[in-house]
């Protein structure tokens, strides 16, 4: 079963904390977005493995864009 991690806001991808294939737990930091002078961490909403990362640092994302998929 896959879980999509979506962007909570429009902004830029600042750093990506995990890589494809990493095991993550719920609430683990996946990446950090930058918007409105804030660095906002994005957390995994499920335990699993990082199946896909759909963005790279510097990318502009819109609210609700899929950032990563956890399997």
């Amino acid at each position, binding site marked *: 079963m896959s879980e999509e991690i979506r962007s909570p806001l429009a902004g830029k991808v600042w750093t990506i904390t995990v890589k494809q294939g990493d095991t993550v*737990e719920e*609430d683990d930091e996946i990446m950090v977005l930058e918007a*409105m*002078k804030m*660095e*906002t*961490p994005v957390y995994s909403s499920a335990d699993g493995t990082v199946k896909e990362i759909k963005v790279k640092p510097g990318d502009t994302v819109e609210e609700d864009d899929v950032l990563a998929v956890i399997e």
Partner: protein
Amino acid sequence: MHKYFKNMDLLGKPLKDKVKQRTEENVQEVEKAEQEVQEAKEKIKEFGLPAEKINSRGQLTIWQRLDILVDEGTWRPLHMLYNPAENEDCTTNVVDGLAKINGRWAVVVGFDNKYMAGAWIPGQSENIFRVTDLAKRLNIPLVWVVNCSGVKLPEQEKFYGGRRGSGTTFFRHAELEQMGLPVLAGIYGTNPAGGGYQGVSPTILFAHKDCNIAVGGAGIVSGMSPKGYFDVESAQELIDVAKQHRETPPGGVDVHYDETGFFRFVFEKEEDVLKAMRDYMTKLPAYDPEFFQVDEPKEPKFPTEDLYYLLPVNPKRTYDFEQILARLVDGSEHQEFRPDYGPEVYTGLVKLDGMLCGCIGNRQGIMPKGYPEYADYPGIGGKLYRQGLIKMNEFVTLCGRDRLPVIWFQDTSGIDVGNIAEKAELLGLGQSLIYSIQQTDVPMMLVTLRKGSAAAHYIMGGPTANRHNAFTLGTVATEIYVMHGETAAVATYTRRLIKDQQAGKSLEPTVEKMNELVKKYYDTSRPIFCAKTGLIDEIAALRDLRGYLQAFAGAAYQNPKSLCPQHHLMLPRIAKG
């Protein structure tokens, strides 16, 4: 009511190893910065004559005296770096803090006898006013260790007279006594003129056998020059007269114990003065803490050391305020007030050493969708919106009603701005919060975790709330300014940039000025600057924060001016619904 307070809701969660690994760099940054602050404090502490020199004269230093006076592990220093007059060779020449003496909280202050035998110097009275204000706000005794040689004569014009000069401190002592608050004083050394009043103005005087207090010292008695100028002949006369007076400075124990009785007690040894003051503390008004405790005191469930991972020094980085609070309060327990309203602000009840306190803090990060409800833009933590302001107004009002001390935590960039925010009444709601605070008349303290900015710094229990804010702490991540330096540069120079361009001038000079302003804002908002200028009362290490909170709660509940019976408390019931 015990059901409300025993086993309250759990706050926070344990830190995962992964999180610790990821934030290890933050730990190192915080510890490095705390080390720098500590070194600055040590430098102040060691200023003046070395302890060995003082000891060789048969005297103890102020720090040795404090070691004997206060209960071990209870000293919470304040104003260590405070230097409002920007003295180059020292700070304010007094040392102060909150401490327990024989089990009871007191505000403790003493002259640093290592520098000019504890002289009055510029900026000192401002420090003493903070000390007397603290005793007044917490309604606890003030305990002095007096050893004051009087005015540093070459600089008298800076602090002798005026509304806030050194003499004003004697009126502050009288003001405390008027309120029923005793001022104890242990007196050492030679205390002429201003030093004499420092000695005589407290309530109960404990004297060392070699001390004196006098309207004027030997120097003044022998210092009249009838010619109106000095020459070698008059200089020789001065030498002869001064030698005589030096033998017997006026106002010793033979006069002020045996004759006037101003000294209530006299002791042979320096240590015995302090021990007697410790004993005397039990004679002063104080409730047993059990009278107010709503639960057994408990340590936080999560370690305080976690704070080094949790509070980012990077000001852009968001964090979970509840995780911070969980490392500071008893049992990491709380009862939140209106969790479904005003999400940018935390309000809730917490316990410190079993005593109930109100707590308010800025949350960080992106607010839930649709908030603020009056605007089409997203809400971000650290800012204040309509609901948050209303919630704080309600909460402090109820804290006042229930007589609960309030602990504020600031990390705020200000109140939402623009016409939409104005229509949502934010300007008026901010001032309403000031009015609500004024109505409460309960002790408050503030921890500026990171940012204290714009009007939010005023309205969230900041030091501008003079009569309410007992003291304000900073951390090594603290920054205080009216607005961010970049914002200030934009506000100051944008019109000039437009004019420059219209006139065909180079933009470089104005851009340079903008960057200079940004740098100035940075330099004048750092923690050490804030401590030196008194924007905060102390920079506390994160591991020491809980100790200050305990001191605040313990002192606020020691002898409150009014109280609310536990079974009449309304806040816990309103929060429960």
